[in-house]
């Protein structure tokens, strides 16, 4: 376990580049593997999204048949959520969390490698349904009885179940690793309340994964038994219950929503203070709001099931509305952080601002959906599709791009090109809103989700056409990003150790960091150890808006002499 820091670096130990990446247990390389793998699945699922949008552009079935369309939206949702957004954020967590807490590696490096390698395996299994008579086609939620033995008898759904079980196991192992790392591997002085917010959000996320994902695994196994061994978990004719699947799926599925958004919130909470040149406003309030969202997430699952008639509406509506409180606290944290700050509109900052505005819209439509009368009206319409994309895409994916631009210099030692990054952002932002804002109106006027065709008389054609144009604009916006990455590898501006004048420890080591991460660590007296290293403790008091932070720095500095410093 992570003893390399005390050993002299092995000299002359060489192996091939490929073997090195295939067998690595270095959290930084595994983090990059996670991110690259996730983006490959992002492109695959993005192509499926273009198939969906192309088909919906005008009435009639022009490009694919109904069954292929069903497979397309099922695979799009499954891959985007389980093999892009969750793992890409886990990848950033893998790379950044040990650096942020001053650790040499994750707690269990080999389990870390296992967690990663299960992902491509699971993803390929899920996709391999296309080779065996068609992929899963019941939607990413796989409601019974559609996913049961009576329908969809192709192996695609079985492969979907097996693949998701592997991906879920990878998540659980990763969660064990993150929690053990955060509790056991922090550097001297890095108390829980000095951890960077990103680390806090990863900690809460890992806890949600640890407790929610196994329930999905149990449900997937039950579904597999029903499909293959004649079980009757979800078959009402012999004592089963199809609604049970919805309970199990959403008991996992709603924490999953926060699994997907919390680390992105953490990214934004690192980026905003750095480019506002201020500490995060209300650190502890943010931490408690994060923990509060985590706790509430286990008591709201049935708001996905209002129209089943099988759930107690007032309770789940109330608990769901409660989530707006911690989320609202965070919104004020972010706004107050920027208030009277020296804002620098770099690309990661732009994506973070995009996150704030888009996630706000997604949050508001979420509170609307928490109200049963509205939910009954728009259940399974494009309003829900709009809501979930404003949260997943406008929230999480904007956070992913903010993280990509923010930490790329640390990972590869070169800064991504800023003008190209801004082109990416604006195309992305405009394309996103063109694609998804009209869906609100489509949903309110009754367009159901998961249909491949609609009547020309329904009045949905123009809005669908706009949405499709937006989807293709998003696809085009990815090109400057890819060009940027390639061009930066060839001839990028060297970044140096700390290109953004960051607050947290990952900027205290070289870019990219050595295998053991740190030769020496600065003293840690706050959640911004690097800021105090470069600016000194007095600096913060010179600006009135920093005053609320000052007592912490002052009070904590008193116990500095009894703490071993500059030591890993």
């Amino acid at each position, binding site marked *: 376990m*992570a003893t390399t820091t005390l050993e002299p670096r092995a000299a002359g130990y060489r192996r091939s580049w490929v073997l090195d990446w295939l067998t690595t247990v270095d959290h930084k390389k595994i983090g990059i593997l996670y991110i690259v793998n996730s983006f490959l699945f992002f492109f695959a699922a993005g192509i499926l999204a273009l198939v969906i949008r192309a088909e919906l552009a005008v009435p009639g079935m022009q490009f694919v048949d109904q069954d292929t369309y069903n497979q397309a939206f099922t695979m799009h949702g499954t891959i985007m959520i389980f093999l892009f957004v969750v793992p890409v954020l886990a990848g950033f967590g893998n790379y950044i969390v040990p650096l942020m807490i001053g*650790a*040499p590696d994750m*707690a*269990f490096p080999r*389990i870390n490698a296992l967690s990663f390698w299960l992902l491509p395996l699971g993803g390929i299994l899920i996709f391999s349904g296309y080779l065996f008579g068609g992929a899963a086609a019941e939607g990413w939620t796989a409601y019974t009885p559609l996913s049961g033995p009576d329908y969809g008898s192709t192996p695609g759904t079985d492969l979907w179940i097996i693949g998701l079980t592997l991906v879920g196991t990878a998540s659980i192992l990763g*969660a*064990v*690793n993150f*929690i*053990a790392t955060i*509790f*056991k*591997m*922090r*550097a*001297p*002085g*890095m*108390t829980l*309340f*000095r951890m960077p917010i990103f680390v806090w959000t990863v900690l809460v996320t890992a806890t949600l994964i*640890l*407790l*929610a994902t*196994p*329930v*999905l*695994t*149990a*449900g997937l*196994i*039950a579904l597999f*038994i*029903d499909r293959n061994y*004649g*079980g*009757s*978990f979800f078959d009402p004719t*012999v*004592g*089963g*219950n199809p609604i*049970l699947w919805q*309970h199990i799926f959403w*008991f996992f599925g709603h924490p999953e929503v926060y699994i997907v958004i919390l680390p992105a919130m953490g990214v934004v909470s690192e980026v905003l203070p750095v480019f506002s040149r201020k500490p995060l*406003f*209300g*650190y*502890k*309030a943010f931490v408690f709001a994060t923990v509060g969202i985590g706790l509430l997430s286990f008591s709201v699952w049935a708001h996905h099931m209002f129209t089943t008639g099988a759930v107690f509406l007032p309770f789940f509506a109330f608990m769901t509305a409660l989530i707006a409180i911690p989320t609202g606290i965070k919104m004020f944290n972010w706004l107050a952080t920027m208030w009277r700050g020296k804002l620098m509109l770099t690309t990661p900052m732009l994506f973070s601002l995009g996150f704030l505005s888009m996630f706000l819209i997604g949050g508001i439509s979420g509170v609307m959906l928490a109200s049963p009368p509205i939910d009954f009206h728009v259940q399974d319409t494009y309003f829900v599709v709009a809501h979930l994309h404003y949260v997943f895409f406008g929230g999480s994916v904007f956070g992913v791009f903010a993280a990509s631009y923010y930490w790329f210099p640390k990972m590869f030692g070169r800064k991504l090109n800023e003008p190209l990054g801004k082109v990416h952002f604006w195309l992305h932002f405009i394309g996103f809103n063109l694609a998804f804002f009209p869906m609100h109106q489509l949903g309110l006027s009754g367009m159901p989700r998961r249909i491949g065709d609609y009547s020309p008389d329904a009045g949905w054609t123009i809005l669908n056409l706009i949405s499709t144009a937006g989807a293709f604009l998003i696809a085009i916006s990815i090109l400057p990003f890819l060009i940027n990455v390639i061009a930066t590898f060839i001839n990028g501006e060297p970044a140096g150790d700390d290109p953004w004048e960051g607050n947290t420890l990952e900027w205290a080591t070289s870019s990219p960091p050595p295998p053991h991460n740190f030769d020496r660590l600065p003293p840690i007296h706050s959640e911004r150890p690097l800021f105090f290293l470069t600016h000194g403790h007095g600096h913060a008091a010179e600006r009135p808006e920093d*005053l*609320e*932070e000052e*007592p*912490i720095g002052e*009070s*904590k500095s*008193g*116990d500095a002499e009894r703490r071993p410093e500059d030591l890993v």
Partner: protein
Amino acid sequence: MTAPTMQAHPAGEHDAAVAVHPGGSGMPTALVGMLLFIASEVMFFGGLFATYFNARASVAPGEWHPPPGGHLDLPLAAVLTAILVASSFTMQFGVWAIRRGDTGKLKLWTAITLALGVLFLAGQIYDYSQLGFGIRDGAFGTVFYTLTGFHGAHVFGGAVGLTIILARSMRGQFSQRNHVAVEAVSMYWHFVDVVWIGVFSTIYLLR
């Protein structure tokens, strides 16, 4: 708004949580990992129990029984329960032995625990062969075999762990100071035991 909250805490309030050396104080990291893994396993069985109670609640009181022609063997299940509970004690005797540095007793108690675990599995397979109903026979058969079967799979996993512990103790790899793997496997074994008590109480006693 947040400023008073922050100032309200006296200096150094959180310093009690400081780990002076990374991973060097408190519970060994491997045990933390095992406890977290067990927490996820609790949730997994929670999901399976949910399917059980859902099926149980879908029939009228008194209507919950094995499919026609089948039965549950309560005496055999009670004996198996006693075997598995006893194995938890023998496991713990092994842990206490190695904490004293007694490697001989560790080998002995681990071997006995492994034997009891294998006996449990053999008894469960025999039980399955005698019940007269299968996983296809309605909701009762499905939830019964899934719950007991996945528990059995976990006993098997624990037995694999015990085999590794036994092999490693035969090679003299454990000592009073260095035996974290023994502690980890014993935690897992106790967990599997507790799950069985839950399964047994639910299926055989609550009915």
